[in-house]
């Protein structure tokens, strides 16, 4: 994954990174906000960036990895363009989230936690997106789709597939 960035020119990343670091203090208490911004910028935490962050915060690299791997928000591999997050909250669970997840897996041909080969979709499940009134629900990037049934899932991804093909 670091390779990707080398292709684009490591300088790009260095520049973006120094921009993020420029308005932070060099202490460990800034570590999580910095990692959050790095991830917002690159979509994941590139190894090289973490090395730089460790240097900047004056903590060992292992600590940075320790913190990043502890929290669910951080990831070490890039994601697909569309992130499908199936809600597995209690309300969704009792209203049929497992069937929804299974249907999405079938439609996209990937399992939970995987990304499609064309880097279009990443599928994951999340603890609760808080739209319990719409259970069961899922998010595609920032859009929430609620009151789902396996049938609706089929429609959802059928339409989206067509749209992306047209654009191309």
């Amino acid at each position: 994954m670091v390779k990707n960035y080398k292709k684009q020119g490591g300088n790009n990343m260095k520049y973006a990174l120094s921009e993020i670091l420029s308005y932070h203090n060099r202490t460990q208490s800034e570590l999580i906000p910095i990692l959050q911004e790095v991830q917002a910028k690159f979509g994941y935490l590139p190894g090289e960036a973490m090395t730089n962050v460790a240097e900047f915060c004056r903590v060992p690299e292992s600590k940075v990895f320790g913190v990043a791997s502890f929290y669910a928000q951080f990831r070490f591999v890039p994601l697909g363009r569309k992130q499908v997050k199936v809600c597995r909250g209690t309300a969704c669970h009792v209203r049929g989230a497992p069937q929804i997840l299974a249907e999405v897996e079938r439609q996209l041909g990937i399992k939970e936690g995987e990304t499609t080969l064309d880097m279009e979709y990443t599928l994951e499940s999340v603890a609760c997106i808080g739209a319990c009134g719409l259970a069961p629900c899922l998010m595609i990037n920032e859009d929430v789709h609620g009151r789902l049934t396996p049938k609706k899932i089929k429609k959802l991804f059928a339409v989206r597939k067509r749209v992306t093909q047209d654009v191309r």
Partner: protein
Amino acid sequence: MSGKTCLVCLGTGCVSAGADQIYEDLRQEVSRLGLSDVTVDFTGCHGCCQCGPIVVVEPEGIFYSQVTTEDVHEIVEFHLRDGKPVKRLFYHDPVTNEAIAHYRDIMFYSKQQRAVLLNCGHINPENIDDYLEAGGYQALRRVLLELHPEQVIDEVKRSELRGLGGAGFPTGKKWEACLKVLGEKKYVICNADEGDPGAFQDRSVLEGDPHSVLEGMIIAGYAVGAKEGYIYVRAEYPLAVKRLQIAIAQARESGFLSKNILSSGFDFDIDIFQGAGAFVCGESTALVLSLEGKRGMPNPLPRPRTTEVGLKDKPTLLNNVKTFANIRWIINKGADWFASIGTEKSKGSAVFSLTGKIENCGLIEVPMGITLREIIFDIGGGIPEGKVFKAVQTGGPSGGCLPASLLNVPVDFDSLTTAGSMMGSGGMVVMDDSTCMVDVARYFLEFTEKESCGQCSLCRLGSSQMLGILRAISEGKGKIEDIDILIELGEAIKIGSLCGLGQSAPNPVITTIRYFRDEYEAHIYEKKCPALVCKDLISYHILPDKCNACMICLRNCPVEAIKGGKKEVHVIDQDKCNRCGVCISVCPKRFSAVECIPGRLIEGGLK
């Protein structure tokens, strides 16, 4: 204001259902028709998320439910212009099917008693003037200009407010302890790390009335002698973060935050910290470590309380969102007023996210001591689709499942704990007869097993052992002795864990065994899932006399397990079938030929 105000709920639930577009359309339509005396505004969560998107027209209080963009034109033209409400969009009572025009008349709202949520759904959370108009920051003014810190704490103590984050520690006591610790620097932290799946009350308060939380925090800062505050909010709540940022900026501008607040000489400022997603960080020492940029693993015992040694080793006051939101009422209306609500040992009100198999999903606030039955059947409107109530789960992954026989238990800290569950932060999930209790127990344990920070062996290893056993039971590989092992292991985990996560992780399993043992036994002895949930213990089956051989299920079956043809009754090959349930969902309603039965079918009989 003489004209009408049209309020669109822009809480996360309604936004998810498309409310932001409705808001835009309403504004456009109103300005297109030149209705100058109509104001269109938005609010935070109105409460009845099931009815979303919600549009309310004040001052009458007309309540429109499940509005779509196509309805906007009708609302504006008929109601806002001509004064004739659109009956079609009224809320319909789930029991009597009667159309109800005003939200005050809807049982969901009329049975509630709101203080924390009073402003939610009625004011624009991004406009400080709305909050001021509703009496906002009066409590702060009174505290800063008239009261000593000791007097503030005394008032909070007399109110007998208990922390609403779950454990119910007396708030006044905590404040007093923090005040008594000597130190130049102290911190106030608002715990908005609402990680329970199925709970959204803290988020709704932050989204609907952020200033009430800020006001409570500033008062707390004054009372304990702190000058800095943090709000630890989940990064998964972008809307709450955004509204908090706006609220903090507005409060600073209006002189309620930062230096020399209201010319009293008191300084206090608040920062937002976005939690990176770890359930265990709801625990106080873990939360503090997380704020310091470390792994959120609770400190080992014996440890000083965070009120003594907290953030950056300084005394730190940590309270839940709703606890802070209550403070202004205690100051404004007095401790006696607050103490008059609720039961003897639990004062005030409780905020719940009522979800699951219930007609009216949503955000509710009820006085302590109300029974579960009143919440579920009066406010919640009962169970949909004519199904039967089976259990209610409170307290999220730390709580337990209570059966129908305990519906008359009053909702307060002690009664719920006695019943084997807990108050928790405010999730309340209702389950009906199509919910499998073994599956629910497995679900919660899956969550806690994943979220265990891993430092206590019993929590880390014990929970995965329990999970393994539960998985085996739900796959039909359960053994007779499994139930006893689960109970023994559960008790051991409770004793052998440092923090609340481990100490309460076995609760869902232990309570489901206590109240629904027969379901576990059906899974183990009969290899059947009575609620038709566990895939390995059910079968799909086509009723020959109902099947019209329409080929729909046959074509849709993802594993090609259905045999048959035109004019040939379809049959499911049980060995190939993976029980995905597609056939039952595609079979046309008028045939309803597919049925799901407990147990595994083999050659026409049960395995």
